[in-house]
Each structure stands twice: as structure tokens, then as C-alpha cells.
């Protein structure tokens, strides 16, 4: 089995947030919880680039390393998932994650954080596949249905790629090649008179 990966092609991402809305709508995520977000650098200036970021499903995930209850685990295909029944909402994974992926909807008692919520790669959770509980806690399980994650499926410009790491890399490599040797074909200097 291959390893699942996201890759966002920053030359294609147009900051439309379609991925964000697709994710929220598809999994019925509460407002304020962002499994995915789009980040833009140099906004309004030459060199403006956007990238869609969620959990990167790291090979050596810091969140798994720091979790005191071992609630976070990695599947054989590289997808990092959390068990919401085990999670105690301590927030250590948030502190360990460079991408700000772990999210904490507010819980019920004394404003405590509820169980951690993050991108599941649309692969549900530890619950029985397609069970009502899985749907309720983690949202859809599109991987089990043989589909790519919602965000990548919805991406208007096909900037966000998801799937087997090798295939994703192939798609991206082909694009880069077509753009003309490496990263050269996009021409900021020409457009904005940079040297």
C-alpha cells in the first residue's frame, strides 16, 4: 500500500477557499474549527502565492510523539488519525504541530477543550467504517469509498493534490516539466520588472 499525501501546487492555488468550505460542509464541522485553511504570502504584491494547508499526515508525526494518551495513531497508508474517545483535549499536539492542524472545539465543562479534531484525509476514524458513530465524530469516510478527500476533489484549479505519494509526485513532476524545466516558466521578473 502506498503512502497517502497532500500536495498543494502554489502556482495553481488561487486562494478561493473552496477546499475549506468543501471540508466543512462535507463533514459538518462546527464554525471555528478549521481542518483546512488557505494561507497567502505577499498578499496584494508581486510574488503573491497561496497554499492550502491541513494536517500533513507527517511520516514521523510530532503529534503522535507528544500525545500523552496515545490517542493519535498512524495507519499503514500514512494517514494520521485521532481517537476522539481517547483524546483528553490537553492540546499538546497543537503545540507540537508546525502546521497548526489540531483543532479543539469547545467542550461542555468549564470551557474545557473537547477532543481534538483534525483533517482525517477523509478516512473517518477508529470507529467501525461507515458506522453512524464514525460519521458523527469524524465525518465522511471517502477513502473507504475509494474516493479522494473532498478538498482535493473540489479544488477548482486542481492545485490541491491528494492520494498515493508516488502518483501525486508524478502529477506534480509532469506539471513542473510542462512549465519548462524546473520552476522557470512562470516569469515573475518579466511580469513585475524584478531583476
Amino acid at each position, binding site marked *: 500500500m502506498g503512502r497517502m499525501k497532500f500536495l498543494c501546487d502554489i502556482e495553481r492555488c488561487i486562494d478561493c477557499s473552496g477546499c*475549506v*468550505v468543501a471540508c466543512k*460542509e462535507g463533514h459538518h464541522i462546527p*464554525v471555528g474549527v478549521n481542518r483546512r485553511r488557505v494561507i497567502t504570502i505577499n*498578499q496584494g*504584491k508581486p510574488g503573491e502565492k497561496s497554499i492550502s494547508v491541513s494536517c500533513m499526515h507527517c511520516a514521523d508525526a510530532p503529534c503522535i510523539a507528544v500525545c500523552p494518551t496515545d490517542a493519535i495513531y498512524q495507519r499503514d497508508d500514512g494517514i494520521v488519525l485521532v481517537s476522539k474517545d481517547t483524546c483528553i483535549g490537553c492540546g499538546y499536539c497543537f503545540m507540537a504541530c508546525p502546521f497548526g492542524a489540531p483543532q479543539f472545539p469547545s467542550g461542555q465543562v468549564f470551557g474545557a477543550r473537547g477532543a481534538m479534531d483534525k483533517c482525517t484525509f477523509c478516512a473517518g476514524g477508529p470507529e467501525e467504517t461507515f458506522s453512524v458513530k464514525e460519521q458523527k465524530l469524524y465525518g465522511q469516510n471517502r477513502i473507504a469509498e475509494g474516493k479522494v478527500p473532498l478538498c482535493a476533489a473540489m479544488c*477548482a484549479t486542481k492545485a490541491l493534490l491528494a492520494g498515493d505519494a508516488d502518483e501525486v509526485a508524478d502529477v506534480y513532476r509532469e506539471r513542473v516539466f510542462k512549465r*519548462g524545466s524546473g520552476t522557470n516558466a512562470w516569469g515573475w521578473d518579466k511580469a513585475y520588472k524584478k531583476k
Partner: protein
Amino acid sequence: MIFIGSNAAEAHPISMQHILHAKEVNNAPIIVVDPRFTKLAAKASEFVRIRPGSDCAFIMGLINEIIQKGWEDKEFIRTRVAGYPEMAEIATKYTPEEVENITGIPAAQTRKVAKILATNRPTSLTWCMGGTQHSIGSSITRAFCILQLVLGNMGKSGGGTNIFRGHDNVQGATDMCVLSHTLPGYYGLSDGSWKHWCRVWDVDYDYITSRFKEKKWMNAKGFTLSRWYEGVLGEEKIEQYTPIKAMIQWGCGSNSNSQYNRVVQAYNKLDLFVIVDPFPTMAAATCTTDNVYLLPCSSQYETSGSVTSTSRQIQWRHKIVDPIGGCRDDYSIMKDLVERLGFADKFYKNIKETPEDITREINKGTLTIGYNGQTPERIKKHMENWHTFDIETLQAKGGPCDGDYYGMPWPCWTDTHPGTPILYDVSKPVAEGGLPFRNRFGQETTYVMSGREENQLASKGVCNPGSEVKGGYAEFKDVVPGTNWKTDLSQKTIKEAIARGMAPFGNARARCVVWTFPDQVPIHREPLHSPRPDLIEKYPTYEDKPNHFRVFTRYKSEQNPNLVKEFPYVLTTGRMVEHMGGGAETRSNKYLSELQPEMYAEINPVLGNNLGLRDGEMIWIESPEGGKVKVKAFFTERVDDKTIFMPYHFGGTLMGESLAGNYPAGHEPYVMGDAANVCTNYGYDIVTQIQATKDGLCKVSRA
């Protein structure tokens, strides 16, 4: 590809897939001409910052530069273009240096863009509201077309002028002419047009005439969406025997109307105001009188019917779910209305099965633009056989739709015609989707400006393959005596033309000179509210126009060179990707509201700091007409230091006061803000009367 007055990355994100594909795979340069460094500009290979409202000068400058350098498509111009020398003569005034003076675009950049266009053919030109919403909008859009004619980019794959429409069925709505100056299918308001449609509807012409107060109103243009409220308020002179008393807004994001504070006054003066919309629009909240009725209607997912896309393709939309929450679909609301008005027997004469029979009626009558081949059965067949269409050519290979172009882009002349994927393409037979330019404006013309006489038909040798006449020819008529190709409901005329390999509408030249317009050749005129008093003198606007769609419209008397002293900044508006139109729908969506929770105005940090403002502070923006909005200042270098940009999707507060209490309880949108259009200035196109929202003036102060 050149984009001017279009921010496809925000307004048409799906199209970006193809735009970036062209850039990536074909190495197509992307030129973006805009006052703002938009998200589309971020993907551009050449960004041209233009002063709002000066598009025409820039394009005429490009045309001049192309002609001066000899880069024009001489053969195309010789055989298929009319009025070229007259146009070229006027273009010579727009030297790159003069263009720099008017538009602020460096002369060198104009030259460079001209060269890029000349060396990358064909070029696709796209414009949107940024090109049209000016007092000279009709001249600007014509200049775009003329540029493509000069470059010989018309009627070619990868060329043409590709205007991106606002929503998925705007093209369809336009084709049905939900307008005040023409009957469906661009037939106009002449007696012949009325008679044609009466035949289609199977309704007595005299009956229709009897519905009007006097016959002359049948042929008179009505009010437009941009200025209907003048007909209520009575502050301007109107050419109608009565003020407007009732109004139905059906799916109208009303806060996209400029001078919105005056529109609000009109709402409250109406005797009856009906709003049909899935969500309560801002109009519903601004009314303080009890003359308002809200009819909740279903969304597009709760009803079915045909829709026409930007590319003239027609698709069938199937119902996903039954209307929820007590709302009803548009058809049933219309039916109830018609029944109570008492003419259902006439209205529904041909319509038994909704909506298929409506489509059939459109097929029957809309011959001008070839809407007759797209029967409901064929459209549905296309939807069911998506997989058989080629992704590049959009033509079905084998299968039940073999040879058809997807969606049968109009004109689709007969029920076996494949549709016309590219307009005016003479490389293909008419029966296979080719077309010459239409013969619409007579055969001989003498130009006023030069005294030259020119044949308007295409030159010898230019025609579609298989054409019986090898060269230009006039439109078809009297095949069935007393009718022409547009009015022959038996469609024998069209069929005969196709059989002879010819286009029903003739084979003519595309015009550079329009003798019925105030500016026969597009020229630059300063916006009514211009920040450049010197240019007002040099490029003054039109004379005032009485009875412009029934309203007296000020031009020259409105253009005041001293206005800029009090209102020093240019105000332009536009879209953001998260919200749509007036935002009634998107601001009622919690996820979209979360992404864009606040109304703002983009201000360059230099201007903001000079004015002593802070990023994120509340400011007042005031228009010369007294409209003002209270919004958050957002410092960004997207805009230059003379321009202020506001998105127009917000509503729910008016001049700084919240209207949240006026919405039906529990139905107020999640996000409310001042409507930008309260501040957009007076100004309307001289031909179409589209509102000039993109080039007004304003002043800014701390709130």
C-alpha cells in the same frame, strides 16, 4: 490571454483551471489589466495597472501601436472587416505617450503588451463588469472587439472575446432578454417582433396590444434595472404617463444597484413591493413600510430546467430534492400569479409539461440566435452521455450524441445541427458548426466621417466550406413568402440556407464603425466624476440625454472639474470569492460568513497613513451624492494610493445603521455590513444605461 476588468480568480474560480492550463501547457502569457493587483494578477505574466474608466484609451493605444508596427492581420481586415480606415484614423490619436497620460500605464508597457499580443496569436480577450460598468462602457467593449478584429483573432479556436458571465445562467437570462428594450431572442420591440412572438405564443396580437394603455408603449423602451427607482421617486424627468407603483424583484440581489440609498427611498414609496428569493434580500430589510411581501422560493437544487452558460452551451439541471422549508419553485409561484391575474389560458397555451414545454417554446421562437435545435430531449441526452464528449474539442465521439458539441452552443440551427462552438469560424461548414459574420446592417454604407462608401458583405472568396456563394451574401428571406429566417416559424428558410452550405443570417463584415452610436468609433471620454480636470477638458463626456430608457440622464451637466477637490479618491467596486452578488445567500451561509465576516474598504497603506488612519479602524466613505458607508479600513497594496476598493456583496446595514431588526425573525444573515453601492456614483452608459460603479469619486474620513 488578456483579461481586462475581470478578476476571474475571484469571480470565476472554476475557469482558472483552464486559464492556468493554457499558461502551463501552452506557455500562454497572461496579461491582466486592472486598477487592482487582483488574485488573478497574482497569476499573471504581465500586470498592467490602469486608472479606472480609461480602458478604451488603453485599447485604442494598443490598436494604434499594432497598426503602426504593421502587426495587424491585413488579410483578415481586407476580407472580413468594415470601416477599418475610419477606425485606424481615430486610433492614431492614442499614442503610447497619450495613453500614459490618460491611463497611467507607462508608454513602454503599452508597447510591450502590443508586442506580446502580436507575437502570441490567437489571443483570447476576456472582460467582465470592470469593462462595462462605465459611462462609456459600450465604447470600451466595442474597442475590445475591434482589437481582436485588428489582430485577426475572431472566429478562431483560442481567440475571440470571451466575456465571463456572473452566474451560471446569466447568458440564458440575457438570451431570454429579461430586459426592457427587447423581446426574447434579441428581437427588439418592433411590431414585427411582437407579431412573431404572438405567433409563437399562439396568442392574438390584438389581445397583446389591448393589454397596453396605448399601442405606442409596446414599442417604447422601458426603465432599466439600474434606474427604475427614478420612475418611483419622480426627482428626474421621466417619460411615462404614471410613476411606477409596484415592483416584483425575482431573484435580485438588490444591493448591487448603484446609489442604493436612493433605491431604498423608492422601495418605501412603492404601493406594492414583492420579493421572490430563497433568502430575505437587503431590499426586504430596508423597507420600513408594510408594502412588502416576501415569497420564499426554492434554490436551483430544488427545481429543474435548462440553463445557458457563458459559452452558449445549454445544459439541463435536474432537481436534487423537493423544495424545503415551505418554499416553492419559481414555476409554481409564476403559475399562481398568472392565474390570479386572469390570463393563464393565454400564458400557458403551449405549456402543459413544466419546464420541458417552456424550453420547447423557446426552441420554437428564438430563431435569431439559433435556439431552435436544443430540444429538451437532446439536452438531457447530452447530460446522460458526458463521457462521450472529447475534453479538448467538446465534440462527442460516437455514442448517442455523435458529432454534437457539448450543450449545443447556440446557434444550433436545426434539431440535427451539432451547435456552434466558435462563433464566426469560416473554417468549418455551417452544418458542422461554422459561421461567417452576420449581415445585419444593410449591404452598402457611406461613412459620415470620411464620406467613403463600403460594401458591408464579406469579400470574395471568404465563406464557409461548401457554401454555394463563394463570398459575401445577404441574409435569407422570402423563402417562405412574407417571412425571413428570423420569423419563419416553419424553419424552412434556415434549413434551406444550411442545405446550401450558407448561414441563414448572411455573410458580412464585422463593423469598426457603428453609425447609430453617439461615438461611431470608440473614443475615450472621461468618467462623469473624473479625478483629472485637465482630461475632462480634453475628453469631455456626452451631452445630457433626455428620455434615456424613459429617464432624463445627465452627462455634461454632471461632469464637474472641481469635484475632485472635495472628493479626491477614485472609488471602485468588485467581487470577492467567498460571497456572491448581493450576498443574501452567501452571507446566510455560516461557513462562507466565517471566511469573510466583515465589510471593508481596501486602502493603500501610503494613502491610509497620509490620512492618519489605522489598519482595521472604522472609516466613513462618502460619495458626491451624499451616500456614505461605515466600513473597516483594510490596508493593502492591492490598490494604488489614489484608489479605494470595496466589495459590493455586503448588506444589512444602511449608512452605518443596522437593519438586523427588520429581517424576519431568525432569518437575518450571519454577516451584515454597509452596502458598497450606497457610495457608488451617478453615471450610466450612454447606450445601455448600465450603472458606472467602477470609476466614481469619494472621500474618506475616520468614523
